[in-house]
């Protein structure tokens, strides 16, 4: 391979590092109306009366929109393929507000100052209800969060909305009851993962305008342009054909932008006024008015025989979806389906779940998507089981690990065709120095160093649902345009897909111009989520390039008046495959391309779509060494080793960066990050002052290695990497903390004070 598996810089790098104006707000016209939202101060209330007359008459104000003015089609903001599993439980503005920050009115005007002034003149009277703030008390709470008659699900997801139960379900394989009875050792504990904020550096922002055909154009920082079109059409009550969505460069997403957040507000202003409109969320709004990771309380019961052979695992997840059900039925599924298969050899396994509504901000998609929460629970339980068995936790893993060729019972019966997890564990064990450091080394009277470990898997795209199409065109100077609907959010998919195209077309990377995303021009793609882009869109690129090569050869055959079956293409020329010196039957690609656009030419373009019947899991083994101060509980990650099997890394640098970034986000989740709500339901961590994400001072060394398997269903053997990398830090660090001082922390985050309190409790 010439270009695949090489660490080329990103194709957009120089624009980004020199500060070029390539993001949404940089491109917005200066005459946009400024849009702002008046938000609810109550966690659960009904709007009884609203007076907007004064505000609407104020200087510079173009419109004030309330629940009386919006279409009545309920929808979900979750970016998912139709029919979406998430319930249709939203309106653009509703008479009932369900969390502190739920929008109450949309105000648009010429300047920010005028809009803010007008917002202060809106008076709202509320009938305030008792909010449901504790997910463990949500079920059958006297307050019913969604009493509306038009609450809708596209198919059965096990909901009982009158009980605040958004969805429920589960499965069992084998007889867990009998296997637990036969177990010599059982661990049965409850693990609690809190809501987290994705906290990408670019907050939510969108601008909208009507084009020359009076169609609504939405330019937005999103991972899901085609789903935005679908959701906006439904929510605004206009046909999809009247909507165009454009995604410029975006300042990251981590799943936050797999949900529609800011798009509808300027859109409805533009439809109301006919004028361009723009909304830019500030950081506070980004925290309080978007979606977070689903808080999950997971009970894990694991049973094994004396030798450490797993007999049964039961995982029960209670997930908190907050006020609305974005991604509720799907994230919870991953807490079981992307953890249990690791221990496919267990004789029986069971997974059950309930997802409840509460009066907190809606949860949504965040890198890892439920697998992260499940991994913390199951991997912590496995480490506790190893301790109970008196067995090395890595030995316990290796004894029960899934293997290539197995049918994964808890993974929809999928066959595992590529897996180097065992090699990842062995490599990581060496890199961290496990034999010398496990469980801990006392380095002074008050300080101890300890190691911990965890393993994980994710998927690569949603099988049979995600769909990626690409188009590749030969242009008349013998370069190619690669039209994609997948969204580069900084991850580098434009580059990775260009590398795949250049490899297939046997050309240099700079001959591939990547163009995306504009729903009027780009081929359909479900979007960049579910670890799908490299794996799924990458495969579509392979297919499209093969087709284009066939077309190039046929076109050359016509020009050369020769049988194309005898011709070959090497990226530069088309020639007689049997006689390389046959100059008569040879044409340079450049000459062919130029001739094809003159007179009776034929523009060469190939489109291919791809969806996958399987979702091959990438794997990772994570190892941590911490240093803990036993007097204060302060815990510092001094070394983190991540060994990843993502199949073939298409771009090793970008794969490494994904891994490093994911590990650090995981460390933030493990040690600091925590969305908490006050007694009245107000989010207490609504800025970087109160919601701490890791800075460069909070980290020690991060070391990454790859142990590549070859995945037959992926392009050049590739699987995904974007999500799997966030899963191991929380359980690995929890394990190291146990090894340092004997306490078990089963609730995140593991802050110094939580550690110290546990140490005191134990004493």
């Amino acid at each position, binding site marked *: 391979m010439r270009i695949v598996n090489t660490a080329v810089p990103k194709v957009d*790098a120089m624009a980004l*590092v*020199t500060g070029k104006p390539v993001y949404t707000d*940089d491109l917005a016209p200066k005459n946009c109306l400024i849009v702002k939202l008046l938000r609810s101060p109550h966690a659960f209330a009904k709007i009884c009366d609203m007076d907007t007359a004064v505000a609407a008459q104020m200087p510079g104000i173009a419109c004030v929109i309330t629940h009386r003015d919006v279409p009545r089609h309920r929808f979900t903001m979750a970016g998912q393929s139709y029919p979406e599993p998430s319930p249709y439980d939203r309106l653009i503005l509703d008479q009932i507000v369900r969390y502190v920050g739920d929008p109450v009115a949309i105000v648009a005007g010429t300047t920010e100052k005028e809009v803010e002034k007008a917002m202060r003149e809106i008076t709202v009277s509320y009938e305030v209800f008792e909010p449901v703030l504790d997910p463990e008390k949500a079920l059958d709470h006297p307050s019913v969060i969604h009493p509306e008659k038009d609450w809708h699900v596209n198919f059965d997801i096990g909901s009982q909305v009158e009980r605040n139960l958004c969805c429920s379900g589960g499965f069992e394989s084998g007889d867990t009851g009998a296997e637990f009875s036969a177990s010599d050792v059982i661990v049965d504990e409850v693990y609690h993962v809190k809501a987290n904020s994705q906290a990408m*550096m670019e907050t939510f922002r969108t601008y909208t305008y009507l084009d020359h055909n009076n169609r609504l154009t939405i330019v937005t920082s999103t991972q899901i342009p085609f789903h935005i079109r679908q959701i906006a059409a439904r929510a605004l009550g206009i046909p999809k054909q009247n909507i165009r969505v454009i995604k410029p460069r975006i300042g*990251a997403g981590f799943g936050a932008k797999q949900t529609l957040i800011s798009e509808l507000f300027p859109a409805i202003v533009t439809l109301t006024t006919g004028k361009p409109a723009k909304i830019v969320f500030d950081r*506070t709004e980004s925290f309080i008015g978007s979606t977070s990771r689903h808080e999950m309380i997971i009970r894990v019961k694991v049973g094994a025989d004396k030798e450490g052979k797993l007999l049964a695992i039961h995982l029960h997840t209670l997930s908190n979806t907050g006020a609305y059900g974005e991604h509720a039925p799907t994230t919870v599924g991953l807490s079981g389906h992307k953890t249990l298969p690791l221990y496919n050899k267990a004789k029986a396994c069971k997974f059950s779940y309930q997802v409840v509504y509460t009066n907190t901000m809606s949860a949504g998609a965040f890198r890892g998507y439920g697998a992260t929460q499940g991994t913390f629970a199951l991997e912590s339980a496995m480490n506790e089981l190893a301790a109970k068995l008196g067995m090395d936790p890595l030995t316990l893993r290796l004894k029960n690990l899934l293997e290539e060729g197995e049918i994964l019972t808890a993974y929809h019966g999928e066959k595992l065709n590529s897996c180097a997890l065992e090699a990842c564990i062995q490599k990581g064990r060496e890199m961290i120095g496990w034999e010398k450091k496990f469980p801990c080394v006392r380095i002074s009277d008050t300080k101890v160093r300890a190691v911990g470990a965890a393993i994980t898997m994710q998927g690569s795209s949603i099988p049979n649902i995600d769909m990626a199409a690409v188009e590749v065109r030969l242009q008349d100077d013998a370069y190619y345009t690669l039209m994609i609907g997948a969204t580069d959010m900084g991850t580098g998919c434009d580059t990775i897909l260009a590398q795949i195209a250049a490899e297939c077309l046997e050309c240099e990377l700079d001959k591939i111009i990547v163009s995306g995303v504009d729903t009027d021009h780009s081929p359909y793609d479900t979007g960049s989520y579910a670890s799908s882009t490299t794996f799924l869109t990458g495969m579509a690129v392979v297919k499209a390039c093969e087709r284009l090569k066939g077309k190039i050869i046929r076109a050359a055959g016509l020009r050369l008046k020769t049988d194309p079956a005898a011709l070959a293409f090497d990226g530069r020329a088309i020639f007689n495959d049997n006689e390389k010196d046959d100059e008569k039957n040879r044409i340079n690609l450049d000459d062919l391309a130029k001739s094809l656009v003159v007179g009776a030419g034929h523009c060469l373009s190939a489109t291919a779509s791809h969806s996958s019947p399987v979702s091959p899991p990438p794997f990772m083994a994570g190892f941590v060494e911490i240093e803990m101060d036993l007097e204060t509980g302060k815990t510092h990650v001094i070394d983190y080793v991540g060994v990843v099997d993502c199949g073939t890394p298409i771009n090793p640098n970008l794969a*490494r960066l994904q891994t490093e970034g994911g*590990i650090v986000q995981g460390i933030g989740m493990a040690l600091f990050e925590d969305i908490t709500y006050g007694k009245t339901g107000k989010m207490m961590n609504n*800025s970087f002052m109160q919601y701490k994400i890791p800075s460069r001072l909070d980290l020690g060394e991060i070391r990454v290695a790859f142990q590549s398997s070859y995945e037959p269903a992926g392009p050049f053997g590739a699987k995904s990497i974007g999500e799997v990398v966030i899963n191991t830090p929380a359980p690995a660090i929890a394990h190291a903390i146990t090894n340092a001082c004997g306490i078990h922390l089963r609730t995140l985050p593991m802050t110094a004070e939580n550690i110290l309190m546990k140490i005191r409790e134990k004493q």
Partner: protein
Amino acid sequence: MQISCDINGKAYTRHIEPDLVLIDFLRDLGFLSLKQGCDTTNCGLCTVWVDGTPRLSCAMLAAGIQGRQITTIEGVEKEAAAFGQFLAAQGADQCGFCSPGFIMNVLAMERELTDPSDDQIKHYLAGNLCRCTGYAGQMRAITLYLGARKGELSCE
């Protein structure tokens, strides 16, 4: 009120509202490299130089720059690109949204510190948040860049 200042070597005189924040003033003038990532002076994205010293343009009033020299990344494009190549060679540009502020601080650090240790680098740049990279790739780029400036290494 009226202010006069120098931005990237060019003189500007403008009428402004007294409460106008520097970042909004500069973005209005077309210096769109400036990004704002928070409302609480935590993220470092909006870093510019005021008289050669890095400052957060979200935490300064435009009125405060009367007679002063402002430098944005547009004003040091060649230097930014020189370091940016090292960042790109690591794949550590990622989403790029924090890059302008981060790079302004790296270039300021280069002017201020001689042969900084890893710890000094981390402390100097502690105020520049990044959610994509996990910082390790940025650190590799800085080390290689500073080495190359001393004639030791290339960005490869």
